[in-house]
């Protein structure tokens, strides 16, 4: 399974359309195979991001805020989109491979003071 997470620093990026960096991970069962790679985009663009998702044969997209048109497009392309995810992308990756990541999840580590 190929997973793409829109990221901003260490977190899932707040908006799909304003994302300039993504993380692509290859997973098998609950394991992440190899080291996930990051891709920097030249500029924030939903269209270019959708094209990248198709090109990379992604199965699951994890993001936070996403507009209806892009959500529909990705769904039409048979992509699984888990949106409104808030928190560190490492936790998002852990949760999705564990099979318990759902849309609208506020992950551990999202809140100030978590884990301290």
């Amino acid at each position, binding site marked *: 399974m190929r997973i793409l997470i829109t990221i901003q620093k260490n977190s899932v990026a707040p*908006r799909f359309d304003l994302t300039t960096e993504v993380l692509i991970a290859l997973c098998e069962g609950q394991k992440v195979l190899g080291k996930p790679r990051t891709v920097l985009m030249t500029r924030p663009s939903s269209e270019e991001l959708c094209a990248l998702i198709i090109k990379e044969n992604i199965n699951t997209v994890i993001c936070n805020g996403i507009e*209806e048109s892009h959500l529909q497009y990705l769904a039409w392309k048979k992509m699984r989109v888990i949106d409104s995810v808030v928190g560190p992308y490492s936790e998002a990756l852990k949760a999705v491979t564990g099979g318990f990541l759902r849309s609208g999840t506020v992950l551990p580590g*999202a809140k100030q003071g978590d884990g301290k």
Partner: protein
Amino acid sequence: MRSTETAFFDKIKIIEILNGIPHGAVILDRDLCIVEMNSSLELLTGFAVSEAKRVRADFILRCNIGKSEKLFRKVLETGESLSVEGNIITQDHKNKPIHFTVSPFRNDDGNSVGLFVFLEDISISHSFDQRGFSSDGVKDILGHSSKMLEMFELLPVLAHTDASVLITGETGTGKDLIAEAIHKASKRSRYPFIKINCGALPEALLESELFGHVRGAFTGAVKDKPGLFRLAQDGTIFLTEIGDLPLSLQVKLLSVLDDREFFPVGGVKKEKVNVRIIAATHRALRELVKRGEFREDLFYRLNVLRLHLPALRERDGDIRLLLDYFLRKFNTSLNKSIKEYSGKATEILTSYHYPGNVRELRNIVEYAVHICRGKSVKKECLPDYLVSPLMDMEVNEEQDVKQIDTEGGVQSKPVADKAEHAVPIDGGWRDVEKGMIIDALKKTGGNRSKAALILGWGRTTLWRKLNRYSLN
């Protein structure tokens, strides 16, 4: 007395003040994390306040105001309020234009210790600006027929009370617009107007949407969710297609109307609400009551104020007015320069019976403006079913017409009684066709050639049908 007052004000919780604001409002600390946010913002973002607390605002608000953190920090540093326009991604994946106002909170030393961010939804004014429409809902409802004037007179009365309103009328008559206009003209206008289609969701989901649920109430209920009744606090909830509301939920709705409180799904604590209910339906509720499909007590509870919207065919002169209005509108939006309807097109358009009412008329004009290549909308630019109506005309036998009855009574009349084009609904197709022939002959003063032309037939076909129906 003074100390009692002070004690009272000390007890007021910030959240109660925030929830009194009819727009999104959030308080941030110096680290730009959320300290408190109101229910309007919960509705906009889809995140409950318990989840959003201590999370950086950027990730919950999902706004585009440049680098919002930079802007927030600037307000913290300078201590000066700022206002900017931007947008946010809402819980239903819409890109909503928002006017942001960011103000600092200062401590006794005058240092900024946090921020207050106010988010005003400006999507309505944006869309009106773009379309060149008036921002007053009532002005968007057009009509100068006597029935519409009667209704316009009734609207302020309905707006100035707080009683439930039941809007009836055929599909496409503008029930949603009227409901919104009543809300906008009422004292609740600064609070939310929330619309839900009772026929669009399965029963279990509808209950959860209306009344909310608590975490663990059912599989997949991973967090508390405020229902639409709670989110519409102090505002208006518009229940469209109320006739499709399942019986079990009718009981719950009745108890909300009576007691102004309800239990969320799976909840043990009652929630109090102050919401005005406007309901609408195109179905004959009294008939549903007779058939046992709608609770009689709920019917009377909703039927405090009744407003019946006339079908377009009953609105003398309004068809022409609406045709011109939509022609101008689509001319602008589609960048066309069509000036008028041709004589033939006008004849067809004004004599059509519009079972889909204003919505259908609007769609017909939009179609025609798209198709039309000249300066005038001709017969050829109209949809085929208008040009050869007999092929497509349908009669909805269940359709009935109600009249405004201030005493709450309902009088049913067949469509035929009111329609310019008499369409008897009892005798099936033969009667419909016969009625249309008589109508066409009346219009043409008995001239069969012209009548055949109106009906879209050859003269021989008309002659044959006249014989068949003994009209010769």
